[in-house]
């Protein structure tokens, strides 16, 4: 198992946003997480990536307990993420956005950077090459000099994925990767996600647009912080609890 949560719980005041969540992700999978608005999907993401501390329960990544660690340390262990909104560095160009995101492999020290030592220059050259490769993979070469703030929404979303790739993640968490995209952009973004998986990256994604579920090997349905159902898209669709979660009682299909 690449990622496992055991009794993961998060309270906001008296409200249990996530309660006793048990889930596991195998290496190489694409897993979709769905659920109605406010079900706790993004909270789960924030818990896994260290932006929130769990109130109870454990998160195991690669067999190591990562619950409550700081975000940059979790990134270092190989969990990349994107945000629901297209968060990026608005005053950096597309290329700089990606280059800045290389902080872990290779890592430069303070004095190295200050004196621009040969070792530092070598590492930076390596990073520039890698960044170009990511640009190619995601298909943003054409806009590499455009400032983040001036990018159209679809491109911004792609850029956030590209940025997350810079930390060489083993597990990539995508929070609504195709939200707000046009049909054309969705097809393109899905092909990019497919390519990322092709590089051996395990993916967990949250999405309201069911179109993307075609990519997923498995779907986890969450409601009120609980896991309601799990399985293939077909299985989940037949599940009584899932139907109730989305449409309320008495809507048996």
């Amino acid at each position, binding site marked *: 198992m690449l990622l496992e949560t055991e009794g993961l719980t998060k309270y906001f005041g008296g409200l249990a946003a996530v309660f006793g969540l048990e889930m596991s992700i195998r290496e190489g999978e694409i897993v979709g997480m769905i659920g109605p608005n406010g079900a706790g999907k993004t909270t789960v993401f924030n818990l896994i*990536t260290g*932006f929130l501390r769990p109130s109870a329960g454990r998160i195991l990544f690669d067999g190591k307990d990562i619950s409550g660690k*700081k*975000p*940059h340390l979790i*990134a*270092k262990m190989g969990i*990349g*993420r994107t*945000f629901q909104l297209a*968060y*990026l*560095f*608005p*005053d*950096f*160009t597309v*290329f*700089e956005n990606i*280059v*800045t*995101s290389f*902080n*872990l492999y290779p890592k*430069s020290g*303070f004095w190295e*950077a*200050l*004196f*621009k030592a040969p070792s*530092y*220059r070598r590492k*930076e*050259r390596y*990073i*520039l090459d890698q960044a170009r490769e990511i640009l190619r993979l995601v298909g943003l070469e*054409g*806009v590499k*000099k*455009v*400032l983040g703030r*001036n990018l*159209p929404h679809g491109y911004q979303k792609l850029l956030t994925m590209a*940025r*997350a790739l*810079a*930390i060489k993640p083993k597990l990539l968490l995508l929070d609504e990767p195709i939200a707000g995209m046009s049909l054309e952009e969705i097809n393109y973004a899905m092909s990019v996600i497919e390519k990322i998986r092709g590089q051996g990256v395990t993916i967990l994604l949250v999405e309201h647009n069911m179109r993307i579920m075609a990519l997923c090997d498995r779907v986890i349905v969450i409601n009120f912080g609980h896991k309601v159902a799990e399985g293939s898209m077909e299985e989940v669709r037949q599940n009584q609890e899932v139907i109730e979660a989305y449409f309320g009682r008495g809507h048996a299909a």
Partner: protein
Amino acid sequence: MLNGERITRGRRNWIRPAVYASLLIILFLLPLFVDSVYYLHTFIISLIYTIAACSLRTVMISGQISIAHAGFMGFGAYVSSILAKELNWTPWLTILLGGISATIVGVLAGYPLTRVRAIYFSMVSLFVGLAIVALIGVFANYTGGDIGLIGIPPLPDIKIPGLPDINFLRSRIPYYYFFLVLTVLSLLILYSLENSRIGMSWKAIAQSYLVASSVGINESGFRVLALAVGCFFAGIAGAGYAHYNMVLTRSSFGFLSSVNLLIYVLVGGTGSFAGPIIGTTVLVIVPEIFRWMKTFAPFVFGGIMLFVVFFMPQGIAGLFEQLKTKVVQFQQRKTLRDVT
């Protein structure tokens, strides 16, 4: 290698170094043309504040607008003065120690400060600055308290065999060169840091600390580092000032001085490295020119500030950038049209 400028604008790289080089030559030849003690004094003061303002900008590019910077200057100044005066250590060493001690205080204050961001950081930092000034008052036995610290040793003579001794008391010119060299060295280090991966990380944190930590940038670590670097040079500048002025009063490192430093940076423009240099030069030297109308000098200062705030929101240095952005934006719109 990694440098925002170089990635985005590959050509015309020689213009900037050429401007800096010619400016440097003029500054080195300046004492040949200016023999007025008063003007040299003004230049020296503006050099000292240039170091302080540039080091403040280094803190600011990591998203931390500090209102404690003059306090750190003061800390370095007092540490250096007391070590030189009471222990008879050579000022060459104590100036460095002044910088190091300011760094230590900056790091100690910096860790708790990483818990607050943006305007809240500024508010808490204000109290750090006030605390340092209060601390100087507490140790009045050594610091002179409100009376001020007098009898600070000047820089000792430099003896070079075969040449006449360089005496720092006989004329201002040796001090001018000392501060010029100190400024150039400090700015080179700050420039190199800003245009390295470290500087990129600082700017990344300022733009979005969430995204920065999601790609493995240690937010608190880099923020403390920025503060440490900034405080080191503030301490050095303060210590240098102490051995030049030979008298220190703690009120000169209080709230108003910190705000003044901030104004130097903002008027010059935070967006580019030249900003605080321009801002300090303009705001230190111009009021001196209008000194003959004494009572109105603050109005000139305020007038410049208002003018800049209204007409150059990115500061004086940003004016050039503002125009350039217009051009770049035009080109980018074209690129996007071609791609989409």
